[in-house]
């Protein structure tokens, strides 16, 4: 079992990767990547049953992960590489010509760890529900995890998937939302109020769990609670801060989709300990 200290160390390196990748690409989405870093670190290093060396696009015999909020590609690529899906040296190619690390996740380039494309918001939860159904049909007892954004939850298709997964009792689907409260145009509640997301998911027939998305004990407890086969899909609402780990990016929606310049990048990296070696 990976300890909380070890998870913290990995998360620090993942945050360094995010800053360095976005900075060298001179574009990309650091804000949400940093807010979901702790949750994805916990998921990939302490929760998911997966074996990167035997991974297939069908994820047969393993847990699957679907990134619905595709702009969180930097954190996704970092946790994949740090888990051993592909060499960490490839992280430096983000958004460059010929790279397997497209601006948003793609299956066309054959990057291991990615089963479905994402980027156009609101679609991944339906696809994750479909994958979970596929596993159920095939007798594969593994789970499908899916990360959505809170801003993304303004898309109607999220709620279509909500009805579908509850109706078909897809209880091997564990979705979670990075509730950082911000989107491009400002606070989610000022753009188009989501009001109480927990109540919404409850009323859709889901099991709802709320947790602190920057506290590993809280994150691990939430995933543990979400494991039961009770006939209900699960939604974990992880409360987080956009830009977490870098003081000048924290809770600032300007950093949703902007790369730091060289000086800002150096400042950010000075706040994040290099624990596993930079790529």
């Amino acid at each position: 079992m990976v300890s909380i200290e070890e998870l913290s160390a990995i998360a620090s390196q993942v945050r360094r990767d995010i800053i360095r990748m976005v900075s060298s690409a001179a574009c990309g989405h650091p804000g949400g990547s940093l807010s979901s870093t702790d949750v994805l670190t916990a998921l990939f290093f302490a929760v998911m049953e997966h074996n990167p060396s035997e991974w297939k696009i069908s994820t047969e015999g393993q847990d699957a992960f679907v990134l619905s909020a595709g702009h969180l590609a930097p954190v996704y690529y970092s946790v994949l590489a740090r888990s051993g899906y592909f060499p960490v040296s490839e992280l430096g190619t983000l958004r460059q010509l010929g790279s397997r690390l497209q601006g948003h996740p793609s299956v066309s380039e054959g990057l291991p760890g990615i089963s479905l494309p994402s980027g156009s918001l609101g679609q991944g939860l339906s696809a994750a529900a479909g994958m979970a159904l596929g596993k159920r049909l095939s007798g594969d007892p593994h789970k499908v995890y899916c990360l959505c954004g809170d801003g993304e939850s303004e898309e109607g298709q999220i709620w279509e998937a909500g009805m579908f997964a509850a109706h078909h009792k897809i209880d091997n689907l564990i979705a979670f939302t990075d509730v950082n409260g911000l989107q491009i145009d400002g606070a989610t509640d000022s753009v188009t109020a989501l009001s109480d997301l927990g109540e919404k998911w409850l009323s859709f027939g889901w099991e709802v769990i709320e947790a602190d998305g920057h506290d590993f004990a809280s994150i691990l407890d939430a995933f543990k609670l979400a494991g039961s086969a009770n006939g209900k899909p699960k939604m974990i609402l992880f409360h987080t801060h956009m830009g977490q780990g870098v003081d000048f990016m924290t809770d600032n929606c300007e950093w949703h989709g902007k790369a730091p310049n060289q000086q800002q990048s150096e400042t950010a990296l000075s706040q994040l300990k290099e624990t596993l070696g930079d790529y």
Partner: protein
Amino acid sequence: MVKYTDTGKKDTRSGFGEGLLKAARADGRIVALAADLTSSVKMGAFAKEFPDRFFQSGIAEANMVGAAAGLAATGKVAFCGSFAEFISGRVYDQVRMMLAYGRANVKLASSHAGITLGEDGATHQTMEDIALMRALPGMTVIAPCDYNQTVQATLAAARYQGPVYLRFGRPAMPNFTNPDEPFEIGKIYVMNPGKDVTIAAYGHLVWEALQAAEALEAQGINAEVLNIATIKPLDVAALRASVSKTGAVVVAEEHNAAGGLGEAIAAALAGQAPMEFINGGDRFGQSGSPSGLFKLYGMDSDHIVAAAVKAIARKKI
């Protein structure tokens, strides 16, 4: 002139239903999803025989397409069915990203396509779906011409690895092709060989094209009738071969002009021969009977005959 006999009018959507059932009995990977139009798109028999492999999405087409992509990712062959408009235009972004860009093994069963949807009117009569689907890299677009060919095209789509848009219609129409002829994706079917003019058609208009060829024969004109059952990828070499021989072309389709087969062939031939077009133009449809609408929108055999005569007259002497 090759003789074709209408063995009894049947709807092409029922051909899809029959094909889906046959394919599913042979291949346990096949699943189907519907959006509250199960019986309209003829998935009812599948749902009854394979309840564990059938998933109702309700009136939520975007979710249906996404869930199908997820099922396909796990190795299933996923068919999702709805009216043509609701499985093309309504879900274009989902089809584009999840199926085309994602190379998903999903088959879009597009029923009630074109103006022959009839009485429901323009809101439901898509005349733009071929344009939308043709524009997507990697999408295969198939529009079989009758019940028998739709059964076979469905079997072929089930065997094919990758996204397919399979277009068929609502009303009972002549059924005239060989029920045992396997469907080959990408093949242009030469329904009648000829030397004076090429008439290229798909879907319901293949029968109209054959009626037109008979009428032209009475005028001493020998028309070559091509059933372009696969609109994408288009067999450009076969088309060029036909047109090199005939020197004139008519393209007939139950679709608007923009982005349809007519434009695809015009681009492929690039001025090689005079062309005439039978299509909906740049209009929406309206309520009416399928035959009445064919007449009003200039899609019946009489209009095809007139177009052929016009194209022939424009050949360079």
